[in-house]
C-alpha cells in the first residue's frame, strides 16, 4: 500500500511538471511558488520575507533551498514524503492502541488514497509536514516520551501556530493519574471495556476541571510546558535575531490578527468586507471570538482523555469558526480522521456517505458562487456569503454526527484502574491454577 501510494505521488509530481509547462492552469499551488521564491532568497543569503506574502517560519524556506539548486520539485518530494510518513504514523498509533489489522489498513488507506490529501502534497503544500509532526507528538505521548513530545510541540507551534489549540488537552492528559514518574503510561486497548467510572459524563467533566485547578502543577505538565515553551521561544528568538520585526510580523502576528476581506469559506468574509473601511471595535472582535472560544473549551474539557478524538473535534471546530478558511486547512483534520475511525459506530452506508456528501455538497455549492465572483466577475456576494453559512452548518452537522457515533475511549488507563485490572488478572490466573 505504501509503495503504491509512493508511486502515485511521484507520478502526480511528474504530471504536475508537465501541466505547468503545457497548460494555462497550473497544477502547482500558488503557495509553492511563494515558498520557492523565499527559498531562492535564502539561497542568496537574503531574508525570505523579501518575498511578499511569505508568512511562514524561515525553516520552511531553508528546507526548500534545493528547489533552486537541485530541482524545483524538491519541495514537493519533501511534502509528499511527509504525507507518506503520516500514513506510517497513523498505522503506529492504531497499532499502539490495539486496533485489529483490517481496521488499521482501512484507516491508513483513508489517508493515503484520499484524493484531497495526496493532491495537497504533490501540488506543493507544506501542511503534510505539520500533520506528521502532530501525529508524532501523539506517538511520543503514548510512549511516555514527554520531553520529546514537548520538543516537537514547541517546534510545530513555531512552524504553523494553529497547533497551539492542542496545548490544553495535552496538558490535561499529562495528569498524575495517567503518568507516573519512571513508568511508561498504560494504554487503553481498542476492544477494552472501560470501567464505568471512567466514562465521559458531566460529573466527570466537572471532576476533571476541579482536579485540574487543584492539582495542575504536576511534574509532567511543568516539564512539558516549560520545555515546549523553551523550544518555541528558541526558534522564534533565533529568527527574530536574524530577520527582526519583519519575521515576527509576517510569520506570527499576521496569523493572530488576520482578517481577510476577500472571499473565503469563512462566514465572516462579507462582514469583514462590509466593515473594512471603518475597522472593527473591540466588542465586535470579542463577539466573533466568543463562539470559537466556547466550543474549544467545551470540547477540550469533555473529550481530552480521548486525545486523538479531542484533537480532531477541536481542529474541525477551529477551522469552521475561523475568520479565514482556505481549503488547505481541511488537511489539518483529515490527518486526524483515520486515528478516530476505528472507534466510530457510524455506518459507511448510509450515515457516513450522507455526512460526506453533505460536507462536499456544501463545499461545491460555495465553490460555484466563488467561481462566479472570482472568474466571471459577477456580483454574487450575498449568495456566496449564504453558501459560507451553509458550509458552517454542514460542518456543525457532521461534527455532531461524529460525536454521537463515537465510542469514547481514553488513550491512557488511570494508574488506579490499571492496578485494579492487573490484580484481577492475577486473581484469575491464581484461580486457574
Amino acid at each position: 500500500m505504501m509503495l503504491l501510494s509512493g508511486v502515485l505521488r511521484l507520478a502526480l509530481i511528474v504530471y504536475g511538471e508537465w501541466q505547468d509547462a503545457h497548460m494555462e492552469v497550473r497544477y502547482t499551488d500558488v503557495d509553492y511558488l511563494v515558498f520557492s521564491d523565499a527559498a531562492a532568497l535564502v539561497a542568496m543569503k537574503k531574508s525570505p520575507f523579501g518575498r511578499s506574502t511569505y508568512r511562514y517560519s524561515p525553516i520552511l524556506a531553508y528546507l526548500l533551498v534545493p528547489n533552486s539548486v537541485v530541482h524545483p520539485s524538491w519541495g514537493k518530494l519533501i511534502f509528499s514524503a511527509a504525507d507518506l510518513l503520516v500514513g506510517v504514523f497513523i498505522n503506529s498509533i492504531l497499532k499502539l492502541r490495539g486496533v485489529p489489522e483490517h481496521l488499521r489498513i482501512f484507516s491508513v488507506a483513508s489517508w493515503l488514497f484520499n484524493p484531497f490529501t495526496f493532491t495537497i502534497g504533490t501540488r506543493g503544500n507544506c501542511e503534510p509536514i505539520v500533520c506528521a509532526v502532530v501525529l508524532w507528538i501523539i506517538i511520543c505521548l503514548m510512549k511516555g516520551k514527554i520531553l520529546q513530545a514537548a520538543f516537537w510541540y514547541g517546534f510545530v507551534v513555531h512552524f504553523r501556530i494553529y497547533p497551539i489549540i492542542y496545548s490544553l488537552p495535552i496538558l490535561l492528559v499529562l495528569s498524575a493519574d495517567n503518568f507516573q514518574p519512571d513508568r511508561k503510561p498504560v494504554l487503553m486497548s481498542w476492544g477494552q471495556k472501560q470501567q464505568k467510572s471512567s466514562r465521559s459524563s458531566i460529573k466527570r467533566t466537572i471532576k476533571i476541571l476541579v482536579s485540574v485547578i487543584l492539582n495542575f502543577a504536576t511534574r509532567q505538565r511543568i516539564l512539558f510546558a516549560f520545555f515546549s515553551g523553551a523550544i518555541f521561544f528558541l526558534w522564534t528568538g533565533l529568527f527574530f535575531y536574524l530577520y527582526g520585526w519583519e519575521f515576527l510580523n509576517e510569520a506570527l502576528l499576521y496569523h493572530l490578527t488576520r482578517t481577510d476581506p476577500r472571499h473565503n469559506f469563512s462566514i465572516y468574509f462579507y462582514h469583514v468586507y462590509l466593515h473594512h473601511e471603518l475597522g472593527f471595535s473591540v466588542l465586535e472582535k470579542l463577539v466573533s471570538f466568543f463562539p470559537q472560544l466556547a466550543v474549544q473549551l467545551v470540547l477540550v474539557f469533555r473529550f481530552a482523555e480521548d486525545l486523538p478524538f479531542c484533537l480532531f473535534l477541536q481542529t474541525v471546530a477551529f477551522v469552521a469558526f475561523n475568520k479565514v478558511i482556505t481549503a488547505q486547512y481541511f488537511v489539518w483534520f483529515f490527518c486526524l480522521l483515520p486515528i478516530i475511525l476505528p472507534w466510530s459506530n457510524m455506518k459507511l452506508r448510509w450515515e457516513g456517505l450522507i455526512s460526506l456528501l453533505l460536507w462536499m455538497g456544501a463545499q461545491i455549492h460555495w465553490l460555484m458562487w466563488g467561481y462566479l465572483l472570482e472568474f466571471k466577475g459577477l456580483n454574487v456576494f450575498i449568495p456566496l456569503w449564504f453558501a459560507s453559512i451553509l458550509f458552517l452548518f454542514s460542518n456543525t452537522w457532521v461534527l455532531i454526527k461524529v460525536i454521537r457515533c463515537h465510542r469514547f475511549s481514553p488513550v491512557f488507563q488511570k494508574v488506579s484502574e490499571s492496578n485494579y485490572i492487573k490484580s484481577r488478572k492475577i486473581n484469575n490466573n491464581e484461580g486457574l491454577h
Partner: protein
Amino acid sequence: MQGLSPMGNRYRYLIVATCMIMSLFEIVCCSQKVGSCNPCKDFLGSGDPHVTGCLSPQKFLFDPYFGNYDDHIELKIKDLIGEEFLLSESCEEAVHRLRSLFKLTVIERHLIGEGSHRRLLSSLKFDCPSDAISVLEDHFCEAVVIERLPLGVFADPFELSHLVQRGVFQDAAVFGDTNLELPSALSNQSIVEAHVKIGIDNISGQNRGLEVSIELPLHIRYPPLGAGGGYLGIEMGRLQALVRCRSRAKPSQWILFGWDVKPSSSLVWQVPRGDPAHAEFVSVITFVSALVSALLIFYSAISYHSLVDNSKDS
C-alpha cells in the same frame, strides 16, 4: 432603495432568501453587461514618435522614480526620460536610420478574460520599410510599455518575474504599491513597465507591417463599497509606449522612440462591489449563525454521555 422606511428595511431582510434564488436569474441578465470587452483601437496619424534620442544603458526607464512614483504618475514621456536624455551627433545619425522603421500607426488594447484576473493586451503596429530586416539584424530592439494602473488594479511582481524567466518578457517590474492583498480602500496606485523583444519574427507577412503584442496579467483588488452594490467601472490608465534599440556593434547606448498615447475610447473593467446597505443584516445573521452552531456543538458535547454511554449500558 435608500428611500425605504425602517419597516421597508426589515421587509428587505425577509426577502433576502428570495433574492438568493433570484440572483441566479440576475446572473444571466448581468453576464452580458459584465462580460463585454470592447477593444480600444487608436490610429496615430503619421505615427512619428513624440520623443527620440539616446539613453545611457539602464534596466528600467522608471528606475529613477522608484519610491517617489506618486509625484510622477502623470509624467509625460519626455519628462520621464528627463535629464538622462542625450542628443549627440552620433545619436542623431542613429535615430535617423531607425526612425523610418518605427512609425507607430495603430495601438490596440483589449482586456482579455473575465473576473478578477484578466490580461491587458497592447498591440503596437508599426509601418515597416523594405530595409526593416537588415536594421533588425544589426540592432537589438525591444518594445517597452509603461502602464499606469488605476487604483484597484494591480500586477503581481512575482508573476511577472516568472514570465521573465519563461522568456515571455525581456524584463518587467512593478513600481509603487506592490502589496497583493489589501483592498482598494487601503492601497495605492502602481506602475508596470514591461519589455518585449522585437525581432524579424514580428514582421507580418501580409502587409509588411511590424506588430508587437504585450500581454500583462492583471488582478483586481476588492473595490470600495458603493450604494446599491452593483459594479464599479475601473477605467484603465493611459499607456506610454517606447521602442529602444541598441546597435549590436556599439551596444553602449540605447536609441529611443517614445509615444504618449491618449486613447480615444476608454477601456473599462467592471468590478463587483459590496453594498453598504447589507452591512447590518449580514453582521446580525453572521453572528447569529456562529452562535447557533456553537450552541449546537456545545449541547451535543454536554449531552454525549446520555446518547452513547446509556446505549452501551443497556
